[in-house]
């Protein structure tokens, strides 16, 4: 009952000055709408840029690195075991780069419930023979179905269908830059030669474009079987396993674990691409900073208008206090006013934010580097909307709190006597 009357008074004061109220609410609406738009757009861009690398990068990569053996024979001799031995001119050993026991590793990964999925890979350095010129390239043996599922491989294949790598033998998908150098298109037969001199003819069934030119200029994809054939290796011969995890933050720990258990090298995504995380963090920080600044400015607008309202309604406040409304009641009235401006302006702001972001989402954005992107990216994360409305409530509450406190301290005697 008591709350009801305070809300009634707040409502009456609000409506009596509806133009001012509208201006205040518009300020909040504007800042919330910009906050939502900015965050949606920025985080859409972030996701896009991160996706450019991170989507295609395994969370943990298992492979055998080429490096000098840490267990040099001298360390195994009892007499020198505890000493510090200096060995010069140590060469990397000729251990095979294939993974030992890859079948068992993959079986284990398949039942590891921290792992979302994995795909085996086999990479060979080859030459593309184009008339009399040789172009260096890399031939990646992949499983196109798993690659598509885990690393969005099919999204980057701009013409042709990646699945056909499985259906047709001796086929290849070329990077766009590479295809241009070879003047190859779908259906063209390209000739490759390996470092050992073997020659093969592969049919182009697709072109892919990753957006990274250096990458597109040298990479090509085919099935694992084809690479094994080219290298004349058995069918368990693979050089890497790309693992995608359910929780990316576990990557460094799991990389260590796998390296120890399987006795191979494991590289986690955080180590391989630390700069991307920093970049997205900074961009997010900037968008939040700008958004919150806008809100604070809107908060000052509300503060001003409430201050003016209190100045105008001094008499009303005095009589309310004389007839038994306490300072707390008066304070509540003005806080109700501020917060209802916040709620109303905030909700409309969310709506406008959604509208503006969906308009941006429709604006064409075509760039050669990003073949899958047709319009500006927008991230419709509901968290932004929740944060937006919470921030608008907090800022309007504080914007109302100071004038409300002032109003609650008004001494009715001075005003009534002053007349």
């Amino acid at each position, binding site marked *: 009952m008591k709350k009801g*009357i305070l809300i*009634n008074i707040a409502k009456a004061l609000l409506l*009596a000055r509806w133009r001012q109220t509208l201006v205040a609410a518009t300020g909040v609406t504007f800042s919330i709408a910009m906050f939502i738009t900015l965050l949606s757009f920025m985080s859409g861009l972030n996701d896009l840029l991160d996706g450019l690398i991170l989507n295609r990068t395994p969370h943990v990569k298992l492979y055998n690195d080429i490096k000098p053996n840490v267990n040099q024979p001298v360390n195994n001799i009892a007499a020198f075991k505890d000493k510090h031995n200096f060995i010069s001119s140590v060469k990397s050993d000729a251990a095979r780069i294939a993974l030992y026991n890859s079948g068992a590793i993959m079986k284990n990964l398949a039942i590891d419930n921290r792992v979302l999925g994995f795909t085996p890979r086999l990479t060979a350095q080859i030459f593309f023979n184009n008339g009399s010129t040789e172009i260096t390239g890399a031939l990646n043996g992949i499983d196109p179905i798993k690659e598509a599922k885990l690393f969005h491989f099919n999204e980057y294949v701009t013409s042709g269908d990646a699945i056909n790598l499985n259906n047709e033998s001796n086929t290849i998908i070329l990077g766009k830059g590479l295809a241009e150098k070879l003047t190859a298109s779908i259906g063209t037969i390209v000739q490759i030669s390996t470092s050992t001199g073997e020659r093969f003819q592969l049919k182009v069934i697709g072109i892919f474009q990753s957006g990274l030119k250096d990458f597109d200029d040298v990479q090509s994809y085919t099935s694992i079987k084809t690479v094994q054939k080219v290298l004349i290796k058995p069918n368990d011969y693979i050089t890497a396993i790309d693992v995608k995890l359910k929780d990316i933050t576990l990557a460094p720990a799991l990389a260590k674990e796998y390296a120890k258990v399987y006795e191979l090298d494991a590289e986690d995504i955080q180590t391989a691409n630390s700069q991307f995380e920093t970049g997205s963090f900074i961009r997010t920080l900037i968008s939040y900073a700008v958004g919150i600044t806008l809100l604070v400015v809107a908060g000052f607008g509300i503060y001003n208008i409430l201050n003016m309202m209190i100045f105008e309604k001094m*008499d009303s406040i005095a009589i*309310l206090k004389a007839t*038994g409304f*306490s300072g707390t009641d008066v304070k509540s009235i003005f806080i109700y006013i501020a917060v209802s401006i916040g709620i109303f302006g905030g909700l409309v702001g969310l709506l406008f934010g959604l509208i503006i972001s969906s308009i941006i989402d429709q604006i064409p954005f075509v760039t050669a580097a990003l073949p899958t992107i047709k319009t500006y990216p927008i991230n419709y994360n509901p968290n932004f909307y929740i944060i937006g409305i919470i921030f608008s409530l907090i800022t309007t509450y504080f914007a109302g709190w100071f004038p409300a406190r002032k109003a609650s301290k008004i001494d009715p*005697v001075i005003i009534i006597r002053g007349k």
Partner: protein
Amino acid sequence: MNQTILEAKHINKYFEDPVRIKVLSDINFSINKGDFVSLTGKSGCGKSTLLYVLSTMDTAYEGEVFIDQALMPKSNESFLAKIRNEKIGFVFQFHYLLNEFNVLENVMLPGQKLAKYSKEEIEHRAYEKLKILDIEKLAFKKANQISGGEKQRVAIARALINDPHIIMGDEPTGNLDKKNSDKVFDIFTKLVSELNQTLLIVTHDESFAERTNRIIKMEDGKIIS
């Protein structure tokens, strides 16, 4: 059956700014139920100051104020607000109606704050008060659409809404012409005779004061008669 409604004991008050001046000195008096008291004196004699002390709105004083035989504290703001709401009705020189509300709502406001009755009941009671003052036909007009005399009567209705122990008035007729101030005076006498309402009215209008049952005269912060 002379029940004491309001009692002042040894009230002293000083104004500190710009220099310490004694404005009220050793005020002692009491008002019984049904009294129609006027507080008169020249401008600056401290009569309004005394009224605000008695009304609990001003708490910077020395001495004791009893309302309905209960000692008024000097610091509990929300308790004093409740006392004003429940036990004191105010009529000021200026009407102080809220222009955002209509007449009936203005009268209802203190009642809704007290929340002793349901909203419908308060509305009914407010309408009854307007009837007593003969202005029930104005009930649904906005407060800024009625005349000055009418506004003052609405303010009296508002003062009556919670059936206060005492109505305090600070120059309630000060802004009104002869005709309207006579009307207000008639209303006051009617309240005293018919409802046994207690009234304490500050005025410098001699003719007004002469017609009340009791006159307290002040000079230089002291009661002289």
